[in-house]
């Protein structure tokens, strides 16, 4: 499966950056997201539960980041498993570019799928991934855009986090801002972007599994 996309987010690159570091924001964008954990600077995992019709499945995605080239992009690889639904694994290139007051996010995903996901979804996987990605980034852009508008006078880290915390209940496993002080200091995109990408794959898995 190959998937490319581009999203224009009505926020500054810094605001996008912050939001992509915010597990609460990501959780909000990913339906059924139970947790997102950072196990090291380059390793993340996420768990998503979804229920459609009579079927409920738990998906786990693990992601590692490599070839970090701040601020231009990096290569990421990950794997999402969904039990009987099969698995998805792959790599992607993700990049952010500043365009005036807005930010353009592009991604280029290459993935293979296995098990029921491949069996049922192979023909529809491209169009469905696109749809899933649109939903995810659409929601992301909306949230970040809102935050950006609200916080326009003070685009600092703290208010953003507060805004996110107000928006949804904090997850038990969500890292506190103090746990990730260095994230905001690095140039380039945080791995959380790719967590989103993997979640997209996982969502495709979910979609396929329900068929």
């Amino acid at each position: 499966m190959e998937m490319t996309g581009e999203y224009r987010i009505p926020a500054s690159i810094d605001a996008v950056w912050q939001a992509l570091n915010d597990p609460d924001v990501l959780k909000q964008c990913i339906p059924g997201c139970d947790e997102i954990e950072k196990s090291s600077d380059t390793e993340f995992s996420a768990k998503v539960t979804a229920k459609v019709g009579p079927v409920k499945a738990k998906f786990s995605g693990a992601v590692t980041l490599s070839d970090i080239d701040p601020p231009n992009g990096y290569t990421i690889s990950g794997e999402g498993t969904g039990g009987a639904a099969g698995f998805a694994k792959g790599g992607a290139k993700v990049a952010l570019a500043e365009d005036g007051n807005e930010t353009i996010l592009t991604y280029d995903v290459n993935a293979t799928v296995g098990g029921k996901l491949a069996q049922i979804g192979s023909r529809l996987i491209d169009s469905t991934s696109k749809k899933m990605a649109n939903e995810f980034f659409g929601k992301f852009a909306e949230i970040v855009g809102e935050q950006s508008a609200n916080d326009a006078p003070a685009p600092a880290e703290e208010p953003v986090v507060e805004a996110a915390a107000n928006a949804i209940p904090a997850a038990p496993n969500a890292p506190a801002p103090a746990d990730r002080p260095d994230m905001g200091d690095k140039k380039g995109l945080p791995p959380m972007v790719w967590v989103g990408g993997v979640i997209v794959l996982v969502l495709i898995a979910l979609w396929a599994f329900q068929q």
Partner: protein
Amino acid sequence: MTATGIGASVKRVEDFRFLTGQGNYTDDINRPNQTYAWILRSPHAHAKITSLDVSAAENAPGVVAIFTGKDMEADGVGSLPCGWQVNNKDDSPMAEPAHPPLVIDRVRHVGDQVAAVIAETKDQARQAAEMIAVEYEVLPVVTNMATAIQGGPQVHDDAPNNLCYDWHIGDKDATAAAFAKAAHVASIDIVNNRLIPNAMEPRAAIGDYDTATGDHTLFTTSQNPHVIRLLMGAFVLNIPEHKLRVVAPDVGGGFGSKIYHYAEEAIVTWAAKKIRRPIKWTAERSESFITDCHGRDHVTKAELALDKDGKFLALRVDTLANMGAYLSTFAPCVPTYLYATLLAGVYTTPQVYCEVKAVFTNTVPVDAYRGAGRPEASFLLERIVDRAARETGLSQVEIRQRNFIPNDAFPYQTPVALEYDSGDYGSTLDQALTAAEVDGFEARKADAAKQGKRRGIGYSTYIEACGIAPSAVVGSLGARAGLFESAEVRVHPTGSVTVFTGSHSHGQGHETTFSQLISDTLGIPMENVEIVHGDTGKVAFGMGTYGSRSLAVGGEAIMRATNRIIDKATKIAAHIMEAPEADIEFKDGKFTVSGTDKEMAFAEISLAAYVPHNFPHETLEPGLDETAFYDPANFTYPGGCHICEVEIDPETGVVDVINFSAVDDVGRVINPMIVEGQVHGGVAQGIGQALLEGCRYDENGQLITGSYMDYTMPRAGDLPSFKVGTHATLCTHNSLGVKGCGEVGAIGSPPAVINAIVDALWDLGVKDMSMPATPEKVWQAIQNAQ
């Protein structure tokens, strides 16, 4: 001929219950206190299981038990057995790797069984299965046969180079000598596409254990319940026959895929005793795609040597046959004794040599599917004959006529073991030429050309071997079973009859055809006849239904038992009517004393047999109930001619089957309507193989044609109204003279379709077309040729 006798187109008596939703299929059966099984399957084509943790799943709601391969292994459960041993060229036995019902520590195809979850409901079982934590160490995958035998990843450690066997038949040297003298050699590369069987009813199984008696019962979607009882009881679960009953009730289609002993049958039977409750498992359609045995999947190189007159001198064939990840029940015999032995076809080719390598790959096991080996043989042969005609300038009709086995040559011994008993290939061809209106083809082709379309006509004069099979012959060839059939004809006191047959009906209409045999022979109404099948608790023994054997083998057993009934009834009639036995005549259901007006109805004799007040007790026992076992002396050899006319839109590559004519020699026809229906179904499947159906794996061993979105089954709109006819020559070694009709359609039709496509496109430079001939492939071939 009576209205319900032999030769009458009686409507199928079973259809009322099927069409009104009153069939009794395995999934319709529910046992008290029943649980449900869900099988956790591998998403990987090849992997080592490094850890398997069921503890979380065991605590899920509704879970009764979870079993793994190690549980079954610890309990002494055996490997799923293979019923046919094929030997290598050096006479050593084939590689026969173990096939555990649940894997021990390695999965070998997507869909392989990893664990069985038993719960109160199916949804609970499925949800618990999600909680089983399996860690896989992914291993290299091989799906391509050529790679597999050339040092590709090893599917089984005990099958070096993934070779199951390297087998051959025929005289290699004599064949080479014939090629050396040839005036022309035609050669062709053939891929016989892998097919996924799609019986309307998915597989299902219910295991039930009676704690009071220790009896096991398995309800299952099988074409041969006695075979399952034998294989599962003796080789897998160690349950003796008298404690194991296998019931295959109404079964919604099989096409071969329900012959085999499947893991789920063993799992539910074994586990039902463990948990002391019944367990039902029903496949979902997407499970069927990755667990029902697939069909075909041959890659072949063939050469045909001809003399200057277009007479065939020799045929040389080299085939790779995919076995999939494990040996299914009858897999080894399909690309050998059901394939290479048919390579003489209907032709007098004096020398045939065929080599077959059977190969393991990380794919679903492959076994018999409607036609089983014979479609592969007829496709190869009819394609290469078509090619030879085009290369030598002979017409498609002429090259066949020059090489047909003549009518006076029967019985005809082929160079590849079989001896054909009867046939009339020339007349069958002539009849088909008339049916297909071949005379008008050129005009139709010209008309089509005016519309920018290309018409083609394709021929197939095929033969098959069915009526499977003479036990001594197949035994000498490696079959681990006899292939006779049994029948019991039980006449009740008031003259109605129950027939217990070992043949199993899963769409063939046995309840009608067999009743017609009884009605015709005993002169009683069809509604007085009941056909019982599919239950080892009722039917003494049976080898089941496959290889178009039900009428030729099972029907003959019924006839033999019925004739014994008549013999005994005649003796009773002679006693009661006080006449010599030789003077008793039985006709139209009445016993008469010749030359007198004395007569007794069949029911009067049956009553006398059960109320034996006036009865020849000195020489006969009471009752009227006879059993026969029939083992055929030879295979039967249906054959025929299929002619297909296609119209191709070169702009889109769409192939439209305009006309399909089939004239088949199936021997004597008992019920023409049923024969026609069987041919219709077979031709539809054959056209499906030729145009639509193609099973595809990706390089990782993932099945990417795993649903009806990607695997295209033929629909009514894809098919023309078939012209179906018969031209009977009688089988010489059964009393009915029948040959079998279940597979002819699927065997004869694919080469006719592809030959028609090649005919339409040959002058553009398209020399070959692989199956399925999808619009994309046809369009691409046209573009490439131009």
